[in-house]
């Protein structure tokens, strides 16, 4: 006799209903809450993208294609050629990476393989402490400590070596300039680079290292020819993630880069002033007027969002494992 057959005392619908539906239906509130939160979060994200696109529409009407090739950025004077800003974003990030990638990888190697185990936790925690220093403090430190030092000591000394020729000619500014921005930006992304590289090196199998040592390789040969090649992907992911951070860095750059030099807008002299997309938004937020001014700043935001979004998707494609680790650390 099958279970589905109704007993004389109970109607058919009741029995089948209890047997089939009850166990799942009692968890329905749980599932609907989870589906609800997922939809809500997705909606907020969609709203986020839509609102930035929408806010930029009045801006695009004014700036047009000139935005992408013009070099005459001067927000308060109504000149909206943003190419110096876009280039400035890439140039500062690029040179910050030139500083942060080798130092980050080198110090991660030192932390993982060089220093005694009992100091390892302390040292790596100290390096990661740099990551939690707020951007505004980096800005203050760069502006009040590093900037004056560069302007009073390093720059005059370098200029005396070349006798005031390029790059120390008329464009050169002391105080806020691209060099100062690049130095501080490099310091800011260094802990990201070092922390992820360390996680990547931790995951290198010991057998590989022991294998290298057993055939007579020196310590540096093992590190250079075994450890580094086998962690190539992870290190690339770390660098791309650090790139994302650098591209979006805002507050410190407002003070350290000094804004686009109207006479010499191109960010190719380290002692020239400059700006990035993000820094220009923050610097001008106080003095725009109406929806059109806000729209133009939103154009900058949209371009920044597309660039950083692309870089982050790239980082995700390269590696998602080491990234999860940092976020959960």
């Amino acid at each position, binding site marked *: 006799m099958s279970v589905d057959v109704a007993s004389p005392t109970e109607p058919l619908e009741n029995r089948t209903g209890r047997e089939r539906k009850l166990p799942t239906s009692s968890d329905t509130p749980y599932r609907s809450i989870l589906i609800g*939160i997922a939809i809500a979060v997705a909606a907020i994200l969609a709203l986020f993208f839509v609102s930035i696109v929408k*806010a930029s529409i009045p801006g695009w009407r004014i700036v047009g294609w000139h935005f992408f090739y013009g070099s005459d950025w001067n927000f308060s004077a109504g000149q909206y050629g943003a190419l110096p800003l876009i280039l400035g974003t890439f140039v500062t990030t690029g040179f910050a990476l030139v500083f942060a990638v080798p130092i980050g990888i080198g110090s991660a190697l030192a932390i993982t393989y060089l220093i005694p185990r009992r100091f390892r936790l302390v040292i790596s925690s100290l390096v990661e*402490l740099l990551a*939690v220093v707020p951007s*505004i*403090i980096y800005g203050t430190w760069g502006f009040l400590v590093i900037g004056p030092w560069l302007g009073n000591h390093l720059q005059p000394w370098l200029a005396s070596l070349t006798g005031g020729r390029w790059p120390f000619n008329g464009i050169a500014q002391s105080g806020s300039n691209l060099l100062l921005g690049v130095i501080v930006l490099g310091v800011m992304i260094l802990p990201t680079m070092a922390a992820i590289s360390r996680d990547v090196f931790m995951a290198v199998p010991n057998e590989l290292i022991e294998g290298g040592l057993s055939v007579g390789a020196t310590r540096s*040969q093992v590190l250079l020819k075994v450890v580094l090649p086998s962690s190539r992907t992870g290190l690339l992911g770390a660098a791309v*993630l650090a790139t994302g951070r650098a591209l979006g860095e805002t507050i410190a750059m407002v003070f350290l880069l000094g804004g686009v030099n109207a006479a010499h807008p191109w960010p190719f002299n380290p002692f020239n002033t400059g700006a990035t997309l993000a820094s220009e938004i923050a610097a001008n937020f106080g003095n725009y007027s109406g929806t059109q001014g806000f729209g133009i700043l939103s154009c900058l935001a949209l371009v920044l969002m597309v660039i*950083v979004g692309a870089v982050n998707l790239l980082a995700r494609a390269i590696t998602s494992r080491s*990234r999860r680790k940092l976020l959960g650390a």
Partner: protein
Amino acid sequence: MSELQHIMTIDERREFVQKAAKSSLRKREFTSKFFLGMMATALVIAFIPLFSILQSVISKGAHYLTWGYLSKPQQTPFAFDLANIGGFSNAITGTILVDGLAVLIAVPIAVLLAVSLYESDGRVMHFLRVTTEVMIGLPSILLGIFIFTFVVTPMGYRMTALAGSLALAILMVPLIAIASEAALRDVPDTLKEAALALGARKSRVMLRVILPYAAPRMVTAVMLSTSRAVGETAPVLFVIGASSLTSWNPMSPVTTLPTMMFTYLQGSNPYIIKSLWGMALILMIIVFFFNLLARLVVARSSKRGL
């Protein structure tokens, strides 16, 4: 006979091999030491900025940690006495108000999001996860623009502490959610299976078994994201306005420590510029406090677990 002259004696041969080996070894040892030295140098260079920042902030900021500066609000502009800068109390209460509200908004949403990321599979959730992770990497200034268009503008360009809290909450939710989801995934399957085998429903297993087990790491995630949010300037700069009054009203404009520093850095009064170090020290203490607390929670729970 002449052929034999070219053949080395066994002693000569031994000497030759030893010399070659020694010079090769010396060369290899030298390059090895050179690279190891480079690594150590990299580590030292990585430390210089940290020490420089700590040294300036502490040595130049310590004498601002007095009751006078902590209890008084900032002096309004146009004061005649340049040296009379007032204090930081409006920025401190503003920071506590904005960040406290942000935590209250973010934590429940983030925990639910983490659970739903954990429980679900399929393409929709994969998309949600990718978007959440990409969201973490987006520059925080974009959040400021989003909240400005979506919250501040519809309210008649009214800047409020609550708007800042919303911006920071959006910053915190993906950070907490991704880290919490990782914590949930690390709960041993045996625990979960034991509970399910006893006939517990999924929601009950989550509430009574998985969440309590993962709680310390989730608390850590909240602390870390709080320490990040406290130092953020860009997302709140345009949406909270500014106020030189000490106020606890979430619907009023407020000043936080980072936004006050942002304004002060643009000024020219040397007394104001100097007082930046005091604010930097207070901000640093708050940020490091949450960070240290997070590490302690992890350390204690892992000790208990073992």
